[in-house]
């Protein structure tokens, strides 16, 4: 059987997913050990959403992420070392220590600082898309949100205008069933909180299995094509599941164990690994070698970041305005 994607691309996607998993697991450990400052909102279990959506984007395409940004950042090409340095609050961090876990990003690879206000990135993404359209750059914008963001006013205002103005933006809802700890079913009277609403704005929508990286990638390809050819925005709702709590202190006591078991059995990395083996794209040995190499890279990044310099205290008073501006 001829596969739709090249071996190089498939292994590239696996490597990115593996990187996100190892990164998040490492961060989790460092927090539990009390080694790393701050808070964490992890995307473990949602790796297929990030990699499937972003793998085919160009470097200068834009991504607007959320308080759960690590997967999106790594998938789009923010470097492991600069992210790890940011997590430790170091000068060499992607935001020079002024962003932290919830604001990671690097404009040089199209990732604007991630947004810790639920829904806050949605109108900004519309603005970036308008900018691309007015400047005729042919860039596209991928804007992520969780299921909870669909009940924000910003969701309504942004999707309405994006549709009216035919903006090159893709609004991706990673529906992991819980808005922090509250089930989306408790707060929303429709099955698909993002996709079911798209028709209200005259917008195209798709629902895809967010744990199947190839299904996500196929939906992404259609939406990217639509956006780049001037046909306007798309809502993509990805059904997925966190393998961890909402944040550092969340032990997920609100999730039924049967539900967890069902989703954990559909782990995105495991599913993709099975696919690669069954279709003779790769071997256990090769995939293990990738995993091991990445684990070593993550460990090296931790060691580097721990030894890196803190930002000078005087820098706290800089960058309030552009070009280092102080008041």
């Amino acid at each position, binding site marked *: 059987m001829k596969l739709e994607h090249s071996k190089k691309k498939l292994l590239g996607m696996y490597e990115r997913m593996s990187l996100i998993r190892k990164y998040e697991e490492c961060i989790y450990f460092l927090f539990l050990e009390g080694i790393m400052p701050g808070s964490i909102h992890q995307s473990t279990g949602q790796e297929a959403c990030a990699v499937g959506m972003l793998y085919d984007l160009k470097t200068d395409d834009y991504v607007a992420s959320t308080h759960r940004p690590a997967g999106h950042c790594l998938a789009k090409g923010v470097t492991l070392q600069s992210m790890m340095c940011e997590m430790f609050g170091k000068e060499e961090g992607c935001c020079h220590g002024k*962003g932290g876990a919830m604001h990671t990003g690097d404009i040089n690879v199209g990732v604007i600082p991630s947004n810790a206000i639920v829904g806050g990135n949605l*109108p900004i993404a519309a603005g970036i898309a308008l900018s691309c359209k*007015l400047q005729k750059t042919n860039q596209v914008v991928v804007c992520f949100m969780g299921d909870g963001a669909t009940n924000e006013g910003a969701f309504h205002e942004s999707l309405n205008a994006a549709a009216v103005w035919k903006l090159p933006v893709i609004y991706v809802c990673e529906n992991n069933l819980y808005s922090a700890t509250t089930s989306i079913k408790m707060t929303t009277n429709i099955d698909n909180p993002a996709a079911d609403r798209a028709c209200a704005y005259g917008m195209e929508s798709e629902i895809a299995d967010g744990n199947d990286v190839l299904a996500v990638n196929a939906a992404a390809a259609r939406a990217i094509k639509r956006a780049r050819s001037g046909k306007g925005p798309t809502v993509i709702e990805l059904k997925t599941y966190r393998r961890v709590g909402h944040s550092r202190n969340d032990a997920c006591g609100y999730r039924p164990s049967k539900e967890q078991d069902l989703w954990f059995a559909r782990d995105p990395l495991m599913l993709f690994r099975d696919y690669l083996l069954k279709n003779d794209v790769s071997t256990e040995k090769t995939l293990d070698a990738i995993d091991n190499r990445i684990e070593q890279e993550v460990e090296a990044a931790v060691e580097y970041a721990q030894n890196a310099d803190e930002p000078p205290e005087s820098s706290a008073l800089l960058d309030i305005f552009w070009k280092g501006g102080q008041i």
Partner: protein
Amino acid sequence: MALIGIADALRTGIMEEMHADETIFCLGEDVDIEGGMGGAFTVTRGLTKEFGPERVINTPISEILISGVAVGAAMTGMRPVADLQYGDFLFCMMDQLVNQAAKMCYMSGGTIKVPMVMRAPCGATNRGAQHAQSFEGFFTHVPGLKVICPSTPYDAKGMIKQAIRDDNPVVVFEHKLLYGGSRKEKDALQTSGEVPETDYTVEFGKAAIRRKGTDLTIVANLLMSYRAQEAAALAEKNGISCEVIDPRSLVPFDYQTMETSVKKTGKLLIVHEDVYTNGWGAQLSAHFAEKCIYDLDAPVMRIATPDTPIPFAPNLENFVIPSKERIYQAIVDLANQ
């Protein structure tokens, strides 16, 4: 040199900048609909004809969107000039202004700039509590925002051009009774003044001395700078010489000009339509208490709108908004201390 009002001066400034820089575009509610008003106060009237609908965008009534689009576009190479009819609607977009626009440069470690202009008509004009507020002080409390309040046609053109060229988010407060132009507001002042047709800007953080004097210093902005000048003229007749200073921009703020004046007069009266508690005058008062107390011959005095919402009934509105008479009385009281 043309004799025009503030609305026309703002429009002239915006148009000159749009001709010079293709990355500038306007957006807002009813910003220029054919047969419409051109925003609520005519500032953007006729821009579509000049620049086309791609650069003059009539938005849905969606303040989160307007501000968010301005932030996103500004981050990626454009210079948006956004308008929302009445400044009170700024509160519908506080997340975008305070959490996004103001923090993006800082959060990104100085790698992203947000050159956007947010225009906001302010001031009480018999429209009730939600189309009336003067809350400049609110925005001076947000690190990362610049806040300006031009009160003359010359400053309006020069400062809107400076705001558009600035690489940071700038909130522009324009007083509804000072616009002049074709939309007649009851009790509006005739602000027409000479505005050069040449390209010029007015630097932020430089106050303007509107009237020279020796006995006491009055710092007042927007409509209050006019009322303060009227009260000062009356005081002059009664032997009290007032220096009236218009700060013009609140962030950055020109403390130097105020300090120099108070060194001479020894007395400071602050007048604003912003409410009393934590209005921008509170910061100025604190500055003098902390840094210049030995230059003062009497305690700083503040005249402001009391801490109330703006009432509708004309007599009540007149009661709460600082009047020429109230300012005059304060001048006399302070002069006698």
